[in-house]
């Protein structure tokens, strides 16, 4: 799974789905939670997207701020999940 592709896909989803990201634009290191781009409902939508697109399972204990703070962190989280699944 390529980092750039995963990151791009997540960015595309966030920009397409969340109005604030679309309005302001979003960079890979922008704070998604603190800046109000994602809220609980947004995280739930994003989780569904990640599970379906990257065929990973996101547990409740994965839903921690450190995994969802930025697109960079999200990308690393998805890759780690995918690698664990493959191993």
């Amino acid at each position, binding site marked *: 799974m390529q980092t750039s592709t995963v990151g791009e896909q997540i960015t595309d989803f966030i920009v397409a789905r969340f109005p604030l990201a679309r309005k302001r634009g979003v960079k890979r290191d922008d704070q998604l939670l603190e800046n109000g781009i994602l809220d609980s409902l947004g995280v739930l939508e994003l989780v569904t997207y990640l599970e379906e697109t990257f065929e990973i399972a996101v547990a409740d204990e*994965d839903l*921690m*701020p450190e995994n969802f703070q930025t697109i960079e962190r999200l990308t690393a989280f998805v890759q780690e999940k995918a690698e664990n699944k493959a191993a």
Partner: protein
Amino acid sequence: MSFFVRQADLETDRDLIVETLRRYLNSSYDNTRFEWCYEKNPYGRARTWIAEDAELHTTVGIASAFPRMFAVMGEVQLMWVLGDFCVSDQYRSLGPALQLQRACLTGIGSGKTTVSYDFPSLSMTAIYKRLGIPVVGQMVRLAKPLRVNRQVKKVVKIPVVAKGVSTVGNALLALRDHWPRSFGGTQISFLDGQCGTEFTVLAEQISSQYGICGWRSATYLNWRYLNNPLYPCQIMTAHVGGTLAAYVVMNQIGEDGLLVDIFGVKNRVVLRSLVNAAVTSLRQRGASTVSVILCDSHPWVSLFQGFGFQAREYRPIVIHAPSAPALCPNMKDWTMWFLTYGDRDS
């Protein structure tokens, strides 16, 4: 980043709870509201859980549950209304919220009865969805225009003309609501002072007719509505033959009137007289609209529609009933519930 959830002590954690609620939920939530909502509830004190960041020693969020008595098929049972849920911006990744609300639900579930309900926002609905607690029904806001001034002002730009059009429109709206004040021997009046025993007697007599409905004792009504520090209400009563038959709880914020609660006998004439008197009073005080918020399965939704109220927005309701009372095994049967806006936490 690690955090933990603990049950709050309402004495020692009081300042922390008030400050957190003010910061993340509502800036008007102060000590007075805390005392009223958390400590003076006649059905018991609130229970609160606090999530804290273990490394930074900061508050991540708060979840509370407030006791309510409900008549379930006529038998009075303890339930909980969930509320005052808030999480700091930087922790809104769902995980902390899930752990916090799960702790709250588990905590109140340790008692005999474990039925709880909530009127969640959309974000909160996502948390319940992840917790496996489905939306079982909806609250509907029914609204009725009392004055046309705001609408006319948007369309007619010449003030003198707008005033004339509004006067005619307002008169027509008022005419539509014409209804004798004491029709069919129903005597309508504002309650002077606090609710007395006749309110408890009414609850005892008719609550069983409404499946699952809030236990509206006089003590509860005084606390919930008349002594509410944030949204003080007035109660208008309908007496038939000198006996309390129904009442409506109302308040007004700016130009918007709200029928917060309504309860009484299933009698169209009595209810029509009561609602009309409430509407007339709000109109006289300058209200432009009046709303009533009921569960969409409420038996009086169609009644209000017949009085000229129209359905506006809908909001979800969740009910968590892992161990329902024996009297009513299917607590999630939405058609059993008789909920009004007054059944919220505050």
